[in-house]
């Protein structure tokens, strides 16, 4: 897999990370070396092997549909960067 600045920039955009122009080469280099390591997987024949997402292979348990937690909005919002009238504040999205 060839990693170039287009790949790095588009991945950074997907990941919502800001890349400084001077760090692009560093990102290309580290992604390239990690993907070289990861590409060793391609030498293994995995035809017909079922992917394993989870060590327990279990299903999510179901529970009764009733309220189990008390409302702790004030407590949880006390650590938020900005709130108003019980809402989280972000910069204006629509003019």
């Amino acid at each position, binding site marked *: *897999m060839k990693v170039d600045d287009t*790949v*790095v920039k588009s*991945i*950074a955009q*997907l*990941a*919502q*990370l*800001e890349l400084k122009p001077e760090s692009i080469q560093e*990102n290309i280099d*580290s*992604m390239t*070396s*990690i*993907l*070289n*390591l*990861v*590409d*060793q*997987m*391609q030498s*293994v024949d*995995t035809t017909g*092997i*079922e*992917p*394993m*997402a*989870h*060590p*327990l292979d*279990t299903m*999510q*348990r179901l*529970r009764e549909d009733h309220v189990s937690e008390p409302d*702790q909005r004030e*407590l*949880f919002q*006390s*650590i*938020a*960067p*900005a709130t108003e009238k019980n809402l*989280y504040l*972000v*910069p*204006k*999205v629509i003019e």
Partner: protein
Amino acid sequence: MAMHNNTIVELLAALKSGEFSSKELTRHYIERIKVLDSLYNAFITPLEEQALQAAEQADADRARGKELPLGGIPIAHKDIFCTRGIKSTCGSRMLDNFISPYDATVVENLTAAGAILIGKTNMDEFAMGSSSETSFYGPVKNPWDLERVPGGSSGGSATAVAARMCAGATGTDTGGSIRQPASLCGISGLKPTYGRVSRWGMVAFASSLDQAGPMTQTAADAALMLNAMAGHDAKDSTSITDPVPDYSARLNDKICGIKLGLCKEYFEDGLDANVQQCVMDAVLVLEKMGARISEVSLPNTRQSVPAYYVIAPAECSANLARYDGVRFGHRCENPVDLGDLYRRSRSEGFGAEVKRRIMIGTFALSAGYYDAYYRKAQQIRRLIKNDFVNVFEEVDMIIGPIAPSTAFRLGEKIGDPVTMYLQDIFTIASNLAGLPAASFPAGFVDGLPIGIQVIGNYLDEASILQLGHQFQLQTDWHKRTPASAEL
């Protein structure tokens, strides 16, 4: 013997007999932290006042006849665990201002068992690292050699126990983060079966791999802590419902006749010859104790690091998407719009290694690459698990090294991520499979400790701890203390 060199088992007996109080013991550890931790940087948040209050309460409870399994024992929590009203940073600038509004289940359970929280320990940022150098709060130093790393990511907890600044500590292990620092610091550390200990309130890195466990001087102490930590938790949908046995019950059973497998792939290349010698010497001790040793094969061992460095970053990139500067954690100054708020808050809040893993994970999950990377890694994960299932038809446990070498120098590997990742070559497979595994002190090379790894079958932590305890009755590696921790 100095108070701090006692194991938890011994401390409980001393507290019970009235030799000293929990308050005296807690004060003693606090004094040690105050003097020693300027050398190590093992603690992010020491908790003097709160610990002394809790110790006083523990003494009062004991005087009233209330006996708790860990009553009055001072322990530390890795700063990955949320602690109500206390800064819970996960070693990151992102959470530098995060005062958790609730306790992790592990914290709740240990508190209910009577443990005293003495402080929160330093760690690799978001548990991503093998050296405890990626912390926003600066690197942790190995008490056996201050120029060297303690391992990671639970390096603060390992150092705190090794330097006797607390009786025991919690750690978490996603790819070796309990076992490798335990090995490099000369203590005992156990990663339980995936799902045995609740992940509720434990900051998520890779949710299908993360598991919390005890870090202690001895296997017997680890059993006591695990007794309190383990158990079903309705708040964690991956929590196992099987009943929790008493992990201390079988410690004194002999290991005569037990079948141990030496995994040949662990001895092929990359393993330091002196480390190998230590492991083989430990195997000889076990053999003399009546264990039956045979060679076993885990043919896909070499694929564990490549598969892990797809799966763990993929899960990390999804988990760390929650840090957006909106609800909690770091927010950048004066964002111009929502995109700027997300990007700058994340870029300022995360360190270099965390960003690197988010980038790799985002790549592996992105359109066009999913099958070649993520799906392929999951298929290899299945092969790795199958290897273990086959081997456990022949043997009871697998033994081998924890890490290729003793503690390396600060700064030695931090500039080369792939070299750092290969540190975890012997530990990662048990995370991928979800198996329990531990490190027990097994010797020294040039004054630096080395652990032996014991991997057990699913939910068979009791056998691992039994083997560790029996080994520790025959050896004294776990009793050695670093010169830097002498006062």
